[in-house]
């Protein structure tokens, strides 16, 4: 399988922009794509948004070769970490808010059927239409049919993880409908024919110079003297999308929260592209994961404090829109809500893993993760990268082997962590990501039991050797040979398989010249006990009463 510089597998027929550069979303032919067609690396689009193809270790190894990517990420994540820490520090009751956020989400999961029915009732009562989708295909079909029923072949979109997850843009393109992303970062990704690498800022892997290049080559109407000053780049995006907003008939959005007791939907954003999509078109279609429901309107007071400070490091994001069904004379006069399962009920069925559904998509866990900062989002092979992706993606794809299949790339995701715990510290709804990662690792290992694996064979061998003192001593002596392999530098850097699995990413120190047993046998006679209570040298005396490591063998 050929791979790209970002370590992504190439999908069949990479998507490129058709001749009309202003019309995105086609799996179109690249004929006449122009001189810019290869400018940004041949970044592919995977067949499945939740399973791009490569395993995490393979993709990470390739991503680590990209020093530009690492520089961009280090800069962006350190900026946002400092901003988040500053605005979270301002809030005296931050921990109480986190506790409330966590408790509300736990309550939501426990009462999900009732809350979904209540939300549906209230949306319908206010003039909305509610649709239910079991999976991505069903959701895409519903949206495409709604768009076609309006007789249009283009829509504007607010950035939404749910629609990324179901591959809505590609599905609409296949139906001849162009979906224009209007969030700045999403626009950058779409113009570059790239894939998102961050939940909040999909183009976080691009720096200002790269963004300028992308705009000049792909936007079609970028000013020729465009500089790489962020404000100028933002102005170019404003001018580019203005006509689209003013003329769009149908918009598609996600939702941050859906309030059960009022039927109110919420979108949190910064640029005003969300307001444009939610306000100006005649028809609005919102795709929302079933876990995004909250019980009451006042619950918003918790999440509207937690979310902006955790995600963009702002006290409040510039714009938040709340709407309830249809308001006569103000905004879209036709509103559709698509409630999406797509694997969420599989996650819900796991009492430990279901906390992954509490996620409010702030991305704070990505920004603090030492692994994410170094490998970037593409290495996770899913539209949900970073620590939350490492627990969400395998579980969302559980029914197709994402958690247990030894051949499935998603089964490697729970290992994409050092378990340092920074993600748990910053999570605004206190998802214990490290514990869930450990739990999922155990599931993956359990799923492989009874099947011959290198790991299993090594553990069996270790058990055989270590359960008998004589065998262990022989093994220690044999390990001394490693000193020959290590050579004068005292490190073993390459070993043949299966030990190569270790030495591929870490050196092995040379075994010590003397084993512990040899040292123990040859040690000088223990000094007589000393009365001084400050003396911690009681080791020798205590040790004589103790058969010591190794001698006890099975008897201990």
């Amino acid at each position, binding site marked *: 399988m050929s791979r790209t510089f970002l370590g992504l597998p190439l999908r069949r027929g990479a998507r490129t922009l058709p001749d009309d550069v202003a019309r995105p979303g086609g799996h179109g032919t690249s004929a006449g794509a122009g001189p810019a067609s290869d400018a940004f690396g041949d970044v592919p689009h995977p067949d499945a948004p939740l399973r791009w193809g490569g395993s995490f270790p393979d993709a990470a190894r390739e991503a680590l070769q990209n020093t530009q990517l690492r520089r961009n990420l280090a800069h962006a994540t350190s900026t946002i970490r400092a901003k988040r820490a500053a605005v979270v520090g301002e809030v005296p009751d931050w921990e109480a808010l986190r506790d409330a956020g966590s408790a509300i989400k736990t309550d939501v999961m*426990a009462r999900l059927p*009732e809350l979904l*029915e209540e939300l549906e009732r209230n949306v319908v009562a206010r003039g909305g239409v509610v649709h239910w989708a079991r999976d991505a295909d069903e959701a895409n079909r519903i949206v495409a049919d709604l768009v076609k029923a309006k007789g249009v072949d283009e829509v504007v979109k607010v950035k939404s993880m749910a629609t990324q997850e179901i591959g809505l843009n590609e599905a609409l393109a296949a139906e001849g409908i162009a979906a224009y992303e209007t969030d700045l970062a999403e626009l950058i990704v779409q113009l570059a024919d790239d894939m998102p690498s961050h939940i909040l800022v999909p183009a976080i892997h691009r720096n200002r110079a790269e963004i300028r290049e992308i705009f000049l080559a792909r936007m079609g109407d970028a000013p020729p003297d465009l500089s790489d000053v962020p404000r100028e780049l933002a102005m170019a995006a404003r001018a580019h999308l203005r006509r689209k907003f003013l003329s769009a008939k149908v918009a598609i959005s996600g939702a941050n929260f859906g309030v059960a007791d009022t039927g109110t939907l919420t979108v949190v954003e910064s640029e005003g592209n969300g307001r444009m999509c939610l306000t100006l078109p005649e028809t609005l279609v919102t795709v929302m994961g079933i876990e995004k429901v909250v019980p009451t309107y006042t619950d918003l007071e918790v999440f509207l404090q937690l979310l902006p400070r955790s995600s963009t490091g*702002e006290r*409040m994001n510039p714009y938040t*829109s709340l709407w309830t069904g249809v308001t006569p004379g103000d905004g879209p006069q036709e509103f559709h809500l698509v409630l999406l399962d797509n694997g969420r009920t599989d996650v819900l069925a796991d009492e430990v893993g279901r906390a992954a559904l509490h996620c409010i998509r702030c991305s704070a866990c990505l920004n603090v993760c030492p692994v994410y900062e170094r490998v970037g989002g593409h290495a996770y092979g899913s539209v949900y990268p970073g620590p939350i992706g490492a627990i969400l993606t395998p579980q969302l794809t559980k029914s197709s082997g994402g958690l247990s299949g030894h051949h499935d790339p998603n089964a490697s995701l729970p290992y994409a962590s050092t378990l340092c715990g920074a993600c748990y510290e910053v999570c605004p709804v206190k998802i214990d990501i490290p514990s869930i990662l450990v739990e999922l690792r155990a599931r993956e290992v359990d799923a492989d039991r009874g099947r011959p694996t290198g790991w299993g064979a090594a553990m069996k061998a270790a058990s055989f050797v270590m359960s008998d003192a004589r065998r262990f001593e022989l093994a220690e002596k044999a390990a001394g040979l490693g000193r020959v392999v290590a050579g004068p530098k005292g490190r073993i850097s390459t070993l043949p398989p299966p030990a190569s699995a270790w030495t591929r990413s870490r050196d092995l120190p040379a075994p010590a010249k003397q084993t512990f047993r040899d040292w123990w046998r040859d040690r000088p006679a223990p000094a007589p006990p000393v009365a001084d209570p400050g003396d911690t040298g009681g080791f020798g005396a205590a040790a004589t009463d103790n058969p010591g490591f190794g001698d006890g063998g099975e008897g201990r």
Partner: protein
Amino acid sequence: MSARDDVLARVRAALGGATATGGPAASGTVARAYREHGDLAPGSPEAVDVLVDRLVDYRAHVHVAASAAEVATIVGDLLADATSVVVPPQLDAAWLGALGAGTAVVPDARDDPRTPDELDRVDAVVTAARVAIADTGTIVLDGEPDQGRRAITLVPDLHVCVVRTDQVVEAVPEAVRLLAAHPERPQTWISGPSATSDIELSRVEGVHGPRTLHVILAPPR
């Protein structure tokens, strides 16, 4: 089985049938140890000071008016270069009293809406507000007749928003509970001018929404 019944059945199966069968048990089961009110009294000078600090921090322009007449003077000054301004149906007429002769007033209402293209040709908008949150520098509009349709505060590039000081609360929960009286009203929460953090996660003001936000703090009615 319909998709609806299927999804709901899957949810119930996932929960192992252990889910509460009674109606919504309210969220009374959720402990709320966070601050439901700030320390500063609504409308107090201290709360207004915090609001001003936060608005300025997010690049909104703040003006303080001692009277309705002074609001009019400030509006007149801010719109001196504007050739047109769109206004909601029940905007306080006194606020437009000092508008220059070169500034056309464009009316807009739910039963008489301007098209997006018409709004795009308008230079500015003047509205009132529903409530302002000092802690976060947020102004909330709820679409009532002194604030108008959502589109009029979105398309024009300059938004002048008049906030009465008695509308200022300190904390987010205070505003949410006030707004909960009419959850069906379409709301827009505005914290500074349109901005983005999408380029290297640095904040840049001015993208699709109004690039300039003026807030005039007016005395209570």
